[in-house]
């Protein structure tokens, strides 16, 4: 399609969408004042029935936990797909990291960067772990904590060197961790089936609102999903880094 015709089509479409979108936005309830039916039901349900202060986490790991298990399955498939696609083919070979071999003085991060790295990686890992442990009490939760921990792993590469990253994000050790974490989530769900309440029902004692051991299975699922996400994303990063820095075709 010639560029001018494309541009014309875009403008026609944009005007049509605009004419529909403006009244649609106007008809929404005012920001912050939504007398939303779903919110009115979910907040008391999570605070009183489940003793969890963070309604979003309670919804994700209790009321709609089946969706979260589906998302973990998607992550698992994505990691498996990445590992499959980036496997080393017969005509390729793995070598020592090329950049560090070709120009060692360039590849070395400066001492200032490494110093910042030491503090930052530790701090980020701690923030991530806090998010998974306290996901049911303050904003955060399993997925958020997992991505922050995986971010700390990537920072090891950026602020230190590939050898340290490779030793940390070792796919042989991470793959079983990810698999076991997801299997454990399914096992917690099955415990719900065994008590007759349904898959992924909240079967552990509920505790008091605002304390660490509250919410029943919610903190358990939080930690397991965080571990699965952190391991899964680290595997993806390790595969990409290996493919870029080590694998040479012939």
């Amino acid at each position: 399609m010639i560029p001018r015709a494309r541009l014309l089509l875009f403008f026609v479409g944009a005007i049509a969408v605009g004419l529909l979108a403006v009244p649609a936005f106007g008809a929404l309830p005012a920001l912050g004042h939504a007398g939303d039916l779903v919110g009115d039901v979910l907040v008391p349900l999570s605070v009183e029935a489940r003793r969890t202060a963070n309604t979003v986490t309670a919804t994700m790991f209790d009321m709609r936990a089946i969706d979260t298990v589906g998302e973990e399955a998607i992550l698992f498939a994505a990691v498996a797909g990445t590992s499959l696609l980036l496997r080393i083919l017969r005509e390729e070979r793995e070598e020592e990291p090329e950049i560090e071999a070709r120009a060692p003085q360039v590849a070395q991060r400066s001492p200032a960067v490494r110093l910042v790295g030491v503090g930052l990686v530790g701090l980020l890992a701690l923030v991530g772990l806090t998010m998974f442990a306290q996901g049911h009490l303050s904003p955060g939760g399993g997925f958020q904590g997992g991505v922050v921990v995986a971010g700390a792993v990537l920072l090891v590469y950026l602020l230190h060197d590939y050898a340290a990253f490779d030793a940390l994000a070792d796919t042989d050790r991470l793959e079983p961790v990810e698999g076991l974490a997801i299997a454990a989530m399914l096992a917690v769900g099955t415990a719900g089936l065994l008590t007759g309440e349904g898959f992924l029902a909240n079967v552990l004692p509920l505790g008091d609102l605002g304390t660490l051991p509250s919410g029943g299975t919610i903190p358990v699922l939080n930690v397991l999903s965080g571990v699965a996400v952190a391991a899964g994303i680290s595997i993806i990063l390790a595969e990409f880094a290996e493919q870029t820095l080590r694998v040479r075709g012939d």
Partner: protein
Amino acid sequence: MNLLLVVSMLAVAVVGTGVVLTRDPLRQAAAAGAFGLVMAVLFVLLRAPDAAISEIAVGSVFIPGLVLFAVAKTRGEDG
């Protein structure tokens, strides 16, 4: 709908357009990082801190990281 919210929504629109208009993939990765940050600010202002944390980690750290690895590999230059 206060000034802060309007400014952050405009910032998202401007930075988003900027990401699309950046043609070089390497630079686009950096622009995507900035976009993630601005989106996270918007999410916090709309009272969704969980979404903001995920957006910063994924949009500003992983997307540029993976794009940089892919570009380095496909160009054959030093990462």
